């Protein structure tokens, strides 16, 4: 299966997005909301940080014994009348979904938001098979109209202004009165709600993701705010759950711990509007609910991450806090990252799933400010793992040649203090002389990356070490 990614083109993507006025306006609006939300939620729950520690420990324990828990889970799903399908690759997962859809002659599939769905490009596969996927999450619905991919793992349309949404609705909802007033978000929401409401009753199959899978009961949990994921699984005949392997936790209590930090980290809510536990198909005597329940467990590179320095990435619960706090993401938005997972978590995960060749830019485009790790509810050491990707690139000679040469030269000097001091002493005195009149330099050979946007402050003159060696000392304290 050919994965469609433009991560290779990150630098140019970023440049484009920095110049994208709509995106910058949208990001400015969204930024404070998520940051303040999380901060307030944390202040309102004294146990928050202790819960994060427990959540991390639960996931570590689970990953250590992942095979046991997956098999225990499968047993329970089957006992409740559901089916578990194991998909090694994205192509395998696509095939399984198509087979299930064909078995019930599905014409339309309703979709709740699923990042795994994006990862395996399930919409494209359904369309190619003549089955119509309908996105029911408002943000996903909007970007489906625009033919775009989500730019954030929680808020798929965060890159759009309301004017852009209005434009898309006008272009696509052509059966409605073109003169209608459609400016404000509530009217936009009402329109989408009305249109989607009919569609809920039309689909034969509903596909959702899963925030958690629970080994104890063979259940899946979705965490939403709209209720679309619930309508998508309760009304159609078939409910398909797409979940990657690492979504599993041992017990319901473990799930509750993670749920307590999930919504708070994501949007600042204490609990999402709808958190739903689903176990198998409807029971005998149930008046509603799906007749079939299928869970597709996706590997697609996760088992290869286990046992490596990237294993900790598998603790991720997809809250989005990292990207909400990342100054790089907040500058360029999610589309610049070129694939399904943006921001810090995408910068660690994407090279693992796509390969360093394809996604190598992402872990490099970080100043290592550390805010992501600071807010991660699962204590994932994101900067450390980005550095590990840089190490892998360096070892395989994938870093750009000029950078290697520059670094090699600098390291050569740094290992030889006397030579370093001599060479830098000369350079600094020269730069100081060049910048003596204004105290700074606007253009310096080999430093275009810096001087494109900034002045370079001129060195004061002789280096500290040289002045200290000559006996220069700071003024003593009065009377000392």
């Amino acid at each position, binding site marked *: 299966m050919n994965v469609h990614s433009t991560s290779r083109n990150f630098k140019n993507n970023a440049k484009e997005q920095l110049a994208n006025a709509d995106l910058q306006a949208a990001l400015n609006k969204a930024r404070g909301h998520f940051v303040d939300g999380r901060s307030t939620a944390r202040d309102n729950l004294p146990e928050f940080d202790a819960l994060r520690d427990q959540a991390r420990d639960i996931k570590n324990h689970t990953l250590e014994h992942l095979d046991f828990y997956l098999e225990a889970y499968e047993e329970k799903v089957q006992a409740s009348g559901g089916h578990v399908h194991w998909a090694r690759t994205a192509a395998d997962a696509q095939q399984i979904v198509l087979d299930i859809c064909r078995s019930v002659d599905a014409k339309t599939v309703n979709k709740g938001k699923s990042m795994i769905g994006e990862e395996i490009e399930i919409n494209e596969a359904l369309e190619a098979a003549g089955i119509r996927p309908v996105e029911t999450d408002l943000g996903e619905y909007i970007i489906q109209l625009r033919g775009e991919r989500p730019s954030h793992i929680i808020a798929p349309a965060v890159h759009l202004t309301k004017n852009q949404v209005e434009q898309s609705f006008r272009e696509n909802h052509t059966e409605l009165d073109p003169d209608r007033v459609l400016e404000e978000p509530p009217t936009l929401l009402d329109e989408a709600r009305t249109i989607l409401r009919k569609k809920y009753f039309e689909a034969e199959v509903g596909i959702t993701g899963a925030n958690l899978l629970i080994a104890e009961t063979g259940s899946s949990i979705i965490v939403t705010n709209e209720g679309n994921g619930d309508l998508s699984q309760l009304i159609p005949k078939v409910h398909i759950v797409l979940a990657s392997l690492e979504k599993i936790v041992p017990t319901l*209590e473990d799930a509750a711990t993670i749920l307590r930090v999930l919504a708070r980290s994501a949007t600042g809510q204490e609990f999402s509007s709808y958190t739903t536990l689903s176990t198998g198909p409807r029971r005998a005597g149930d008046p509603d609910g799906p007749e079939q329940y299928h869970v597709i467990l996706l590997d697609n590179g996760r088992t290869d991450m286990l046992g490596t320095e990237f294993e900790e990435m598998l603790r991720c619960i997809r809250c989005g806090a990292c990207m909400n706090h990342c100054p790089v993401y907040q500058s360029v938005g999610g589309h610049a990252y070129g694939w399904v997972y943006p921001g810090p978590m995408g910068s660690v995960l994407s090279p693992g799933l796509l390969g360093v060749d394809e996604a190598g830019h992402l872990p490099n485009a970080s100043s290592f400010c550390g805010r992501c790790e600071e807010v991660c509810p699962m204590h994932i050491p994101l900067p450390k793992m980005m550095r590990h990707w840089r190490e892998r690139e360096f070892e395989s000679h994938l870093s750009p040649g000029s950078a290697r040469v520059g670094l090699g030269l600098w390291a050569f000097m740094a290992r030889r203090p006397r030579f370093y001091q001599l060479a830098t002493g000369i350079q600094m005195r020269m730069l100081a002389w060049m910048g003596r009149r204004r105290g700074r330099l606007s253009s310096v050979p080999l430093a275009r990356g810096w001087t494109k946007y900034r002045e370079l402050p001129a060195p004061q003159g002789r280096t500290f070490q040289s002045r200290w060696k000559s006996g220069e000392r700071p003024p003593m304290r009065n009377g000392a």
Partner: protein
Amino acid sequence: MSGKDQILGSLRRSKGRDGPVDAETAAALRARIDGHARNIVPARTDLDAGGLVDLFETMATKVHATVARVSDMADVPGAVSDYLRGENLPSEVVMAPDPSLDAAPWSDNKLLDIRRGVPGEPDQVSITSAPHAVAETGTLAMFSGPDHPSTLNFIPETHVVVLPASRVVKSYEDVWDAVRAQAADGASGRGGLPPRTVNFVTGPSRSGDIEQNQLLGAHGPRRPPIPIAEAH
């Protein structure tokens, strides 16, 4: 080799194992599942029954649910019809077949036009009960079953939940215990399984997808009002 074998094989190799975990480890893991120990439960729930009901009301109101307290089940139908009238909502309602709702004298209220059963697309108002309400975050917990079609929680735009005060519990963990109790109850006719669907509902449906404006009522109910009956 099946997908399952491939995946488990790759997983075990990555973990440095030839095969599944040894018998001792498996027993310990099984015990961990069966023990389902609680992790930290926030101290804000350390309240008596009355305190929990108050906490529930405070938390539910914070997330824009409408909470009305009535002193007796007898007052519930009136409270519901008053609310619907005040909000200019239709008085045709679809109600869960739940026998616990029968404790309220619905037929005495001539304003409400009640049908018991599963909602359809035209239904605008639903009435259900809830077996539990979690004080910790103002969250209702509803179980699917013959008495309670889950679609009642989502299809109509207005969802009224009649909640006897005695059903307020501290935390989600208390709901899990009830889920397990149902599964363990062979006589319940539920096949030794948990409810198919457990819905935790906290406030009305919302979406932040348009410029992060918090809009209430995206797909599910716009507002779940929750009259609490004190009597039970």
